[in-house]
């Protein structure tokens, strides 16, 4: 059976097209600049080097882990913000946006102050269990969660606010607990928002550098992610290597994101 075609208005109004083109240009041109500048002949050797592959693997694992943590912890925070009448709600909303504003390096310092060896919690953990977070892969994930989770929270809260709450009323009259309602009614309704937030969060985690390098350091195989690798290359005056690494990150993430979204959107709409 053929799908009925919607009337998709392909003629785009100028009021939208012109600014959209400017917007796309601002985003695309710098990338073209990178592509032009990339040392194409050195590409194979750079990309297949052990160090780069290790960093790539580490980046993908930590960003994914950070996104999962952010989903598990961030979606409930968004729900608290959108659906309850907590007293300190607007303060909490402010706090959530802080990591967006905080320069990542300072974020890393802040994490050290809490989870570092002399930090409030880190010190206690070190003494009690002999565990220390900084300079471990877990620290990378924690830094990424700190920096990237707010994106997820803000996106999901926005989605929660645009959904029709009467569906939740109906679920309540049908005897659903607020947990069931959340799981079966609210969550499916905001799924596109959650997806968008997860994408933002994952991308931000993948590109995260400042907080990671400060809190987790940079040891190959353990904490040196791709952005750190690129930064090292710049510091060494090797900006061309840095460009190649950046292009690699771009290609990998765009491939994953596009693949994911197309599958996801294709199946639901």
């Amino acid at each position, binding site marked *: 059976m053929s799908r009925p075609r919607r009337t998709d208005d392909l003629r785009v109004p100028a009021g939208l097209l012109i600014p959209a083109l400017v917007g796309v240009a601002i985003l695309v041109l710098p990338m073209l600049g990178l592509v032009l500048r990339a040392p194409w002949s050195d590409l194979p050797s750079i990309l297949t080097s052990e160090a780069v592959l290790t960093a790539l693997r580490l980046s993908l694992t930590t960003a994914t882990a950070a996104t999962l943590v952010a989903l598990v912890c961030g979606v409930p925070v968004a729900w608290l913000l959108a659906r309850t009448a907590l007293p300190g709600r607007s303060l909490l909303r402010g706090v959530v946006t802080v990591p967006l504003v905080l320069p990542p390096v300072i974020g890393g310092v802040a994490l050290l102050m809490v989870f*570092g060896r*002399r930090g409030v919690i880190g010190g206690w953990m070190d003494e009690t269990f002999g565990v220390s977070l900084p300079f471990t892969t877990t620290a990378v994930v924690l830094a990424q969660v700190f920096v990237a989770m707010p994106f997820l929270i803000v996106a999901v809260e926005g989605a929660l606010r645009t959904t029709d709450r009467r569906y939740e009323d109906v679920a309540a009259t049908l005897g659903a607990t607020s947990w069931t309602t959340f799981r079966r009614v609210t969550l499916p309704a905001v799924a596109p928002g959650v997806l968008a937030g997860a994408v933002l969060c994952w991308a931000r985690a993948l590109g995260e550098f400042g907080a990671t390098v400060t809190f987790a*350091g940079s040891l190959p195989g353990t904490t040196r992610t791709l952005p*750190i690798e690129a930064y*090292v290359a*710049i*510091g060494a*005056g090797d900006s061309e290597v840095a460009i190649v690494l950046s292009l690699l990150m771009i290609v990998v993430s765009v491939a994953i994101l596009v693949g994911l979204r197309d599958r996801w959107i294709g199946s639901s709409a």
Partner: protein
Amino acid sequence: DDDEDPQVGAGSDTASGQGDTPSGTVTVLAAASLTESFEELAGQLAREYPDLEVVFSFGPSSGLVEQVISGAPADVLATADPTTMDEAVAADVVDGEPVVFARNALTLAVPAGNPAGVTGLADLADDDLRVAVCEPQVPCGAAAERLLDAAGVTAAPDTLTTDVKEAASLVALGEADAALIYRTDAAAEGDDIETLDVPEADEIVNDYPVALLADAANPDGARAIAGAITGELGRSVLAEAGFLEP
């Protein structure tokens, strides 16, 4: 001022002449580790050249060179290592030869009170110690590598920092038990850091070059500043911050 064209110089009707008192604005791009010294220097210079306004843009050396190559409107460039300066020279944006105005040497830094009881370079090989060393690809890391080679130590670092400041602050925060950092950085952290004497370190130094820029809008001012940096005044201010003389 935009209407000034020092190249034409003689015909200028502003206070900026060819004489001994340079005026106008001079823009200096300088490595971030020079922040305190240069600001101090500019303050003292103000007495000598009251009409000259010095504007600093501090940043990572590699970024500064990238900016100069891209046409940053600046007059003087001071980097934290010769490699990055060489790039600028190669790109033909430098006027004349860069001059080394300071040197920096490594030192072994430990947190105040030396909680881990570090005694010397050899302890850097200890797996149980939390050690921070600069990434070998960056200037301070290259220096550290040479130092460790010279001392015959194979370090077991827990983190390879891309920036020496990072290593310094890890020590200051007590997150690292020991780190190889520059003397200047150790000095900047003040009381949070103690340094241990490393005899081999004096041999392995890193040069800080300064250069006039080819596109300088205010060559007179640039010369005056560069002169001050390489001259007596610069020397004393830089020495105070822990730099070695060139």
